């Protein structure tokens, strides 16, 4: 298991991949928003928590196809499936590697980008907290989506289509925490819901992902 995690992390660093690029995409989405919406500061600070969450979600989404597609194409997934490693474990590890290379850097960078969108000062902590709790769910759900579409060539868009509705609850609660935080309102309820969703996803979805992989490998 550790071998797989180590290899995935190493690959994502070698290919000039994962790490920097999801972050860069996030940066760019946030930067483009004012160009699209207009430079009015009041408008921007109103939509800042939402756009930051949406940007993080899209950056996550874009890097999902790295999770299985390469291993599928070069046959490594076949070989992992016939190896002693249980496929559930492999799916969980893949999700963890994805989170380490995208969710974690996104969480760390989000407050800095909040400055660009005039996020109110009290919102920074809540934004970071909501992302820290929510991005693991995004990674695991994404792993499941990637497992479903792994047999489809260039399944990227198809996967987005499948994954995005699954992201809705996480997005709603996550953005709500960030928005209430920015407006200095109570955040306990959405925060609890977010944590519950994340936990449940991490505990259960690797099994679903493994099942999907088994079908696709057949």
């Amino acid at each position: 298991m550790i071998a797989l995690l180590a290899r995935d992390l190493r690959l994502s660093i070698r290919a000039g991949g994962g790490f920097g690029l999801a972050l860069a995409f996030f940066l760019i989405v946030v930067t483009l928003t004012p160009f699209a919406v207009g430079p009015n500061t009041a408008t921007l600070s109103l939509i800042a928590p939402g756009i930051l969450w949406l940007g993080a979600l899209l950056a996550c989404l874009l890097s999902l196809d790295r999770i299985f597609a390469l291993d599928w194409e070069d046959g490594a997934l076949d070989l992992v499936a016939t190896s002693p490693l249980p496929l559930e474990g492999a799916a969980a590890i893949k999700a963890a590697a994805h989170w380490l290379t995208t969710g974690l850097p996104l969480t760390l960078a989000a407050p800095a980008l909040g400055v660009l969108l005039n996020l109110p000062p009290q919102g920074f902590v809540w934004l970071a907290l909501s992302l820290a709790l929510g991005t693991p769910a995004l990674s695991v759900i994404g792993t499941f989506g990637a497992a479903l579409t792994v047999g489809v060539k260039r399944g990227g868009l198809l996967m987005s289509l499948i994954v995005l509705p699954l992201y809705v609850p996480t997005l709603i609660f996550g953005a709500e925490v960030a928005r209430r935080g920015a407006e200095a309102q109570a955040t306990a309820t959405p925060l609890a819901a977010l944590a519950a969703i994340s936990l449940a996803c991490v505990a259960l979805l690797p099994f679903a992902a493994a099942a999907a992989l088994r079908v696709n490998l057949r």
Partner: protein
Amino acid sequence: MSIWEYANPTKFMRVTGVALPWLWALTAVCLTVGLTWGFFFTPDDFRQGSTVKIIYLHVPSALMGINAWLMMLATSLIWLIRRHHVSALAAKAAAPVGATFTLIALATGALWGQPMWGTWWEWDPRLTSFLVLFLFYLGYMALWAAIEDPDTAADLTSVLCLVGSVFAVLSRYALVFWNQGLHQGASLSLDAEENVADVFWYPLLVCIAGFVLLFVALVFLRTRTEIRARRIKALETRARISAA
């Protein structure tokens, strides 16, 4: 002897090897003099108080952020037309330096914006075009990093640099149209009436000279490193070939 001889790696190494210590010394002198003078021996501005002193970091790094890109544009063109390896490597070496200067300009600007405009960031065209420039640097460096073969990478990044320059200019016009900003006009232009007062102006000039020298020194240093890395690769290849 034509100027292109310096594009030979060996010549370049020899000349810059001699020049670098002097460059470093000159850089240190200019920066020390300029910054000390600026920080400790100029009066506070009557409106901005002592925050005005950020100008000695902000303006030079902003200028170098742009100039570094212009230099990359020139060296990219030289590579595409004359295919001198040193030229491509110099462009590669300049990118992180330029990006750092751009980042310093952004950071000092943000620090300055807080007391002046009451906000860290404002979507002013000048500021925004700097942000876009920073993004161009990121893309350029990512492309260098992603491609294995050095000559392929040099070609592709050069093309990107050319196309990117055109789009950077376009963005600048688009941004001015999009939002007329808060930022200072270019008060360094020689013919302008309302140039900053001479007391600020002379130390600023020294600082700018210091930053230019620092840039040249850093680019030389990094180009030398890149050349050595290529040299090592060539030697490894040779060793492998004769071992095989």
